């Protein structure tokens, strides 16, 4: 089959690789109909996620048709149309029992590696380095889906297009979780850093959950336009203004009640010296993150407010403003999204017409054009917000 393989920093290739086969009774093989490039894939592309190997198949946002199932998968049949969540979770451990599927205790066979870096391991994840299990990803023609009786959700409504349901695999639940973690009350003002796909879903979700005002922060006009489309009441271009100052002004001096960080480890800062400091430390591996948005969100948030972090981070950051966080009682909530528990309720919202996730898509490309898709997405060419690949 054809598959998108990581082949070192800033290079992906679509290669011929062996077809996947069932490895356990609880596996299924899915023939992929749509698969997307995630902003977090760019961290892999840029080479900032450790434990990648040349040849790793990328991709953790995919959907398709079940073509083969193991004996232990009772709830799926060949021919079912399914969306697959990006975390791989067993459904049987203590964490899964609590609904914390992204920290499943069994599904990551490389948990020992992850424990060395993070203390405890995460669940398995498709196409996201050895630390999360070394699973082949879904930017390919086929994928093996472990614990297929736990993860995939069946899409029975044929009126829904792939673009409408594909993002149940990651970014819609991730953006939604960001808003949900903020425990939004009527009248709340929410600021969202990053108007990429996750940020757009966080904005839309904050509105769905009752925020009165949502302020979007980004540096690209076309993304800020999308943010308005998603429901943002205010937009801020951080290259033109000092964000904390503007946020104070927009909130009558209080600061936002909640801040959602949708940027991750490769943030930019408009001040060249501040940006350069973390850029150099990251390039020389003295820190793994460029965490400008996290710092700014904590400093901007009102006393006693909540900062939700949905951006992906790898290891260790410098200059974490713990003084601001501690003295002002900021709550930080975060996590890899336990997608499984959001799929059903969010699918219902899509079916009811409360949201149409396809608004984030800017490009459809053939699977073989994946390298072009990565370049466009990385460099924000042609107003790129989201690339969907069609195998």
């Amino acid at each position, binding site marked *: 089959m054809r*598959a998108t*393989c990581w082949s070192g920093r800033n290079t992906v290739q679509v290669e011929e*690789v*062996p*077809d*996947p*086969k069932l*490895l*356990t*009774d*609880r596996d299924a093989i899915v023939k992929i109909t749509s698969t997307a490039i995630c902003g977090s894939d760019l961290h892999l592309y840029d080479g900032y996620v450790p*434990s990648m*190997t*040349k*040849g*790793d*198949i990328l991709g953790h946002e995919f959907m398709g048709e079940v073509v083969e199932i193991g004996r*232990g998968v009772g709830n799926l049949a060949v021919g079912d149309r399914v969306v697959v969540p990006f975390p*791989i979770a*067993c*459904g*049987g*451990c*203590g964490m899964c*029992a609590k609904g914390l599927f992204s920290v499943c*205790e*069994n*599904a*990551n*066979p*490389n*948990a*020992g*590696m992850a424990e060395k870096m993070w203390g405890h391991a995460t669940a*398995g994840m498709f*196409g996201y380095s*050895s630390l999360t*299990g*070394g*699973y*082949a*990803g879904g930017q390919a023609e086929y994928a*093996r889906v*472990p*614990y297929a009786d736990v993860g995939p959700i069946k899409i029975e409504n044929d009126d829904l297009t792939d673009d409408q349901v594909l993002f149940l695999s990651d970014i819609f639940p991730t953006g939604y979780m960001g808003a949900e973690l903020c425990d939004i009350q009527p009248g709340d003002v929410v600021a969202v850093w990053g108007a990429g796909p996750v940020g757009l879903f966080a904005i839309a979700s904050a509105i769905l959950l009752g925020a009165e005002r949502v302020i979007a922060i980004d540096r690209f006009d076309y993304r800020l336009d999308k943010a308005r489309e998603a429901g943002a009441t205010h937009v801020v271009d951080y290259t033109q203004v000092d964000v904390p100052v503007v946020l104070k002004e927009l909130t009558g001096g209080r600061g936002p009640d909640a801040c959602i960080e949708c940027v991750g480890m490769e943030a930019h800062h408009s001040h060249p010296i501040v940006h350069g400091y973390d850029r150099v430390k990251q390039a020389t591996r003295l820190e793994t993150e460029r965490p400008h948005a996290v710092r700014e969100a904590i400093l901007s948030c009102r006393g006693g407010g909540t900062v939700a972090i949905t951006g992906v981070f790898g290891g260790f950051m410098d200059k974490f403003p713990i003084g601001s966080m501690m003295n002002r009682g900021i709550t930080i909530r975060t996590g890899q999204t336990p997608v499984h528990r959001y799929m059903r309720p969010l699918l219902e919202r899509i079916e009811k017409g409360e949201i149409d996730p396809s608004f984030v898509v800017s490009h459809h490309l053939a699977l073989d054009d994946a390298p072009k898709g990565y370049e466009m997405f990385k460099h924000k060419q042609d107003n790129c917000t989201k690339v969907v690949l069609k195998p």
Partner: protein
Amino acid sequence: MHSASEGVDGTAPAVGPVRLADALGWSSSALGAPMTVAPRRFLRAIGVRDDPKAVAWTLGVGVREHVATLNIVANRQRRIGMWSRVAGDAMDLTLLAAAYRHKREDEARLFGAMGVVGTLLAVDLFTAVGLTRADGAHVSDGSGSTGVGVEHDTGGGHTRVRTAVTIRRPEAEVRAAFRAFAWTAFDPAALEASGDVRFERAPGNRGTEVHLDHEPVVRGGGLGAAAAKAVGQAPDQKIHDELRRFKSLTETGVIARSETSPEGPSSARQILHKRQPAQPVEGA
């Protein structure tokens, strides 16, 4: 603020190897300062001719002394720092002996300097040995530990494994599964008989905790153990791999298998994870 920390910084009498190490760490800079600030005067004071080569050596040794302070006091690498000081003392004695032969100006002062360095060597050695012993005692005594992890007994070639895992199943079921699982790292019956494995109810209805406190036999001595560890075949690595497989199998009926770890959790695969990309394997 007057606090106990002042004492730790060396103003209190140096009792115990740690305090002694910190005091000696500060003394490094006290000695290094005149060497770096006024190397010529320092050389005259110890009775050595201050030619350019001797000055260069003195500057070098002075910098080394400051590094020693940073390492021991600021970096808290006391044990390594003290052994470095021992090596430094030996180097200084060699330098002084060379100076005695080629650059002697004042014999009495040179002998005095040698005496001081000799005394420092004895004190440094005493402290370094003390710290090493204290570290060994700390590592092999597991009484203060949380009970999870691996402890290395520096006294012998053995590795004691203390670890625990929670299985979301009732105790009777976990016990039965424990006996039935195909362990290669140990004999489950022998472990139960010796009391090296213990089953406890996990709080909050979370199933059963399996606690292991086991000292597997390590073959091949220190070198063999290190070699086994490097390829993921050490007894503690095997125990951890098999415990994960046991948990997965008992809770889910299967062992989690990825493209890069097709046999399930494996320390060897993790160490050699770059050998194989995350792609389906032909014929797997």
